[in-house]
């Protein structure tokens, strides 16, 4: 029963992540706007399909087409069809305040149930006479005073939709893997320093569970990619580099399985696990950041910031890392206890 509380704690925190991460709704968003283009000077009706929106339940629905920070027009007519579908009519002005033939416009919708939500570059407006610059018609839209809605909701991202919840599992698995591998490499160093076999057993057990988390991470990432990037595997740097790192770690398991001499196996695998961990850091953290990648946080854009990981996601993401690390430690502990027992039986037999 020694230190049982953290095992229960890990399980409870994971339960909290499971329930909260699945029950809390996603913010409303716009999935499609048809038609997606318009001409200057025409009255046009857009069919807008939303996700998690409440057009009919809302008493006041407003919509704008926004050109830039000071130029916007408001909808002349709004017709609600269903909760998730509505028709917005705009009269596009003949003149635009910018001198470009094609201008992207963002659609902003606000209602008192859902609050405000945006579809950037929803419509491309073709300007008939781009030399006549006038922003007059764009200035009196009354944009602003958006409805404020209470309660926590996860951010809506196009394409991602509900899969944003995978953040709590796929990404947290990698973070937890790192924690376990760090413990593994710590015990490898301790073994090389002291020569105590207990550190060899601990190092191997933590590494094994860490590698298991890595394999889970690859599989879950592959599933997520199928839903969002429409393929199980892409030539994305991060994917390939992580696969290489995992292969290096799989070789660690081969190495441990290949030698029957205990002392030699312990020394070899301890040194190899230090090498594998050192190789893991550039492969996972440095190389993917130097080129473009589909993953957030690579190719220059910061991850764990802004809309990628907002405060509502943090509420479950960080506890998930802690929970998975605790559960991983629990599993490692079971392996350690098994190995110690096996060692004892072997010694008795000799």
């Amino acid at each position, binding site marked *: 029963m020694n230190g049982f509380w953290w095992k229960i704690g890990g399980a409870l925190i994971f339960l909290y992540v499971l329930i909260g991460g699945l029950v809390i709704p996603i913010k409303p968003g716009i999935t499609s706007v048809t038609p997606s283009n318009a001409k200057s000077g025409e009255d046009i009706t857009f069919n807008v399909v939303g996700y998690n929106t409440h057009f009919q339940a809302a008493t006041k629905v407003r919509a704008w087409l926004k050109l830039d920070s000071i130029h916007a027009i408001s909808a002349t007519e709004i017709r609600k069809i269903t909760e998730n579908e509505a028709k917005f009519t705009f009269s596009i002005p003949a003149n635009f305040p910018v001198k470009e033939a094609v201008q992207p416009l963002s659609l902003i919708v606000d209602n008192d149930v859902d609050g405000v939500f945006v579809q950037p570059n929803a419509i491309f407006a073709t300007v008939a006479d781009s030399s006549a610059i006038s922003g007059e018609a764009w200035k009196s839209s009354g944009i602003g005073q958006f409805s404020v809605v209470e309660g926590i909701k996860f951010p809506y991202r196009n394409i991602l939709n*509900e*899969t944003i*919840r*995978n953040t709590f599992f796929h990404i947290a698995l990698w973070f937890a893997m790192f924690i376990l591998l760090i413990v593994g490499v710590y015990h490898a160093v301790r073994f090389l320093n002291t020569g105590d076999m207990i550190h060899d057993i601990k190092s191997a057990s933590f590494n094994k569970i860490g590698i298991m988390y890595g394999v*889970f991470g690859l*599989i879950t990432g592959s*599933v997520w990619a199928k*839903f969002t990037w429409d393929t199980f595997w892409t030539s994305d740097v991060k994917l390939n580099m992580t696969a290489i790192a995992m292969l290096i770690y799989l070789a660690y398991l081969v190495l441990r399985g290949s030698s029957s001499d205990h002392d030699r196996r312990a020394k070899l695998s301890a040194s190899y696990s230090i090498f594998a961990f050192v190789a893991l850091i550039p492969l996972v953290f440095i190389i993917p950041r130097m080129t473009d990648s589909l993953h957030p946080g690579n190719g220059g854009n910061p991850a764990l910031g802004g809309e990628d990981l907002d405060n509502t996601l943090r509420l479950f993401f960080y506890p998930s890392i802690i929970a998975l690390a605790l559960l991983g430690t629990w599993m490692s502990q079971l*392996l350690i206890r098994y190995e110690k027992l096996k060692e004892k*039986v072997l010694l008795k037999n000799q």
Partner: protein
Amino acid sequence: MKKFLSLTFISLCAVLPLMAQGDSLDFLRSTGKIYSVVIVIAVIFIGITILLYRLDRKLTKLENQIKNEQ
């Protein structure tokens, strides 16, 4: 090594048929792709179950070994 290969293989076997092209994919993509989250949690659960199963078997073997010596 064998353990992890089989673990990967079995998890993939559980997931792949669900993700085959056609009608089942449309079903999986409904409700804002929530089923990707279901599959991800299922993968983790199946993986941990396999680990427990294998540990159980190894322990049973060890128990038998101890019993035989007595």
